[in-house]
């Protein structure tokens, strides 16, 4: 028995190939089979009214930059801008400090919003999926619509002006010199963040709890 397990073929094919394939089949192929009726949606297919509203808002607020970097506000330009925004989100490593995954524990649904399901993530803008790995800043999967586009522009330009204790770095390269002139990357990132959670009934998903201090101040509520 021992000698079989020490053979070159056993190590090469059994341990090297066999064990890897076993794990891949059980942990990657099984969900693939389970989700076979859930095709991946394109960016265009996940454009919705809420996101189009935000796009229109961006167009009205930043008329010149929008015309220059995006052009018309259509479903197609919206999808393309979402893709740009997602690229920036990945390239800047946003997902290393912000998760996109509400867990059904630790009061997270109260803080962030509804617990997600698989169909939500089954689209082009979640390939690779942005579950995240650490929360230095808050979860963003239900961030869309909570704050205005202006807030986001100022926040990307100089985060601590709107969030005093933040550790987030500045991102001036998302603008053409000032916070009222977001470039294509800036417009894309703002739209992408506003898109997060836009497919939910409860958009925008405001934080559904009252801090303890306020509870004590207004016990009647």
């Amino acid at each position: 028995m021992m000698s079989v397990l020490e053979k070159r073929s056993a190590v090469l094919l059994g341990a090297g190939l066999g064990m890897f394939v076993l794990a891949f089949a059980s942990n990657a192929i099984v969900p693939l089979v389970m989700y076979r009726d859930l095709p991946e949606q394109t960016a265009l297919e996940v454009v919705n009214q809420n996101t189009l509203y935000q796009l229109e808002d961006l167009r009205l607020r930043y008329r010149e930059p929008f015309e220059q970097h995006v052009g018309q506000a259509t479903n197609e330009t919206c999808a393309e801008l979402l893709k740009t925004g997602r690229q920036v989100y990945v390239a800047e490593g946003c997902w290393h400090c912000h998760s996109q995954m509400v867990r059904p524990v630790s009061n997270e649904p109260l803080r962030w919003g509804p617990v997600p399901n698989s169909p939500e993530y089954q689209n082009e803008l979640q390939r690779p999926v942005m579950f995240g790995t650490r929360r230095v800043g808050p979860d963003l999967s239900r961030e869309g619509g909570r704050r205005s586009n202006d807030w986001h522009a100022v926040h990307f330009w100089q985060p601590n002006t709107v969030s005093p204790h933040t550790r987030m770095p500045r991102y001036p390269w998302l603008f053409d010199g000032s916070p009222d002139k977001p470039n294509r990357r800036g417009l894309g990132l703002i739209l992408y963040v506003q898109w997060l959670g836009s497919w939910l009934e409860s958009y925008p998903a405001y934080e559904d709890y009252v801090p303890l201090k306020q509870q004590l101040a207004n016990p009647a509520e």
Partner: protein
Amino acid sequence: MSDAPTAQPAAFEGPLVETRLVAWYFYASLAYLWLALAAGLLIGLQLVDGNPLPAAEWLSPGRWRMVHTNTVVYGFLANGIFGAVHWAIPRLLLRPFLSRTLSYFVFYAWQVIALGTVVGILHGHAQGVELGESPTWIDPLVLVVWLLLAVNAAAPILRTGGAMYVSLWYFLAAYVWMFLTTAMGNFLPEYFVAGTNGGAIQGLFLHDLVGLFITPFGWGLMYYFVPILLKKPIWSHSLSLIGFWGLAFFYPLNGIHHFLYSPIPMFLQHGAIVATIAVEMVVTTVIVNFFATVWGTGATWYRVLPLRWFYVGMVLYFLTCVQCAIQVTLTFQQLIHFTDWVVGHAHLVMFGVFSFWLFGIMTYLFPILLGVPWRSTALCEWHFWLSFVGIAVMVIDLTAAGVIQGFLWGALKPWDTAVEASHPFWMVRLIAGVVIIAGQLCFLGNLFFTWRDGRAGAARVDSHDA
């Protein structure tokens, strides 16, 4: 046991070990270590709101965060491991690698990969897969180089007859695993599999990088260097077998534990949890084997500095794995997921274990490679103690920070409260990081003077010849 060794010393030209290449790999490894330390320092400063650099694209802490992790794995640890393996495999086989030219080609190609990853990330070409951030244009090259690495090392292993030593089981399997892991993780989530399913594959990839690349090479090197330095064989061959096959079976099944409480089917999450706890039991057999080996040799493990690096690393490895088995439970996950606890865990295993083992190997091999003893044994001691104290403080600090963050989040405190509460912990972490950097500075300085001694010695020999 299998049949007795029948291997004849192979006929080959040139040296058995390409010592110059081993040294090159170690130099490259240390160069990337310093890049990783610089990146870590920058992020540490950013977290305490003390980043002195201007807000420029190439200096963005978000990008340097990815440079930090990728450089540790592909620059520092990978180069160090490849160097050590270029020493160990030929000496185990009494046969060199398949091709000397190929060995050098792979060295250059790997530097292109490691440097390309850094430049690509800083340029904004990162990919959204953890530890797979290397830009998409590098990924195919990584796959090819893994194949070449595997062929170059596996060919002599497969050609040599007789029983195969434990280290070679680990190396041989790891070459196969790394090729498959790279093929899976760098391509499927990026191009083919979105969403939850892609998340499962990312979890496998991330975990396999540690579990099927760094861990098996690390243990293979321990099985090689520890008996040599102790001048006695490994205690139990059967335990070695259990350790190897246990790792091969359970480790690849762990990946999904990175995304517990995600929409990934719950039975798969449960499976990953059980497999993770099983790994802890397998690890215990390996640890028992190594401690039974050192048993009865008195204070040798402490007196011989490389052995001290190895054995302290093993104790920290055991702690890491105990931590794994506890923190992987759903009860613990509620509290610590997404917190600094996990960051502490990652530093414990990457620095406290695998970096320690590499430092031990380098401490042992550099005098042989350079032909002179270390210039200063005191600096070698400082390297050890500053590294040890630094990582111990950092891990305890981050673990405590994680618990506090978890409770504050769960108590629905405003987000800022948790950030403010983390501040003192981040300050301590920054100081611990500086201590670690000071330790590496001792090592670098010592290495430089030792290298100069070696050059001076070589020059004297040359002038005598002339």
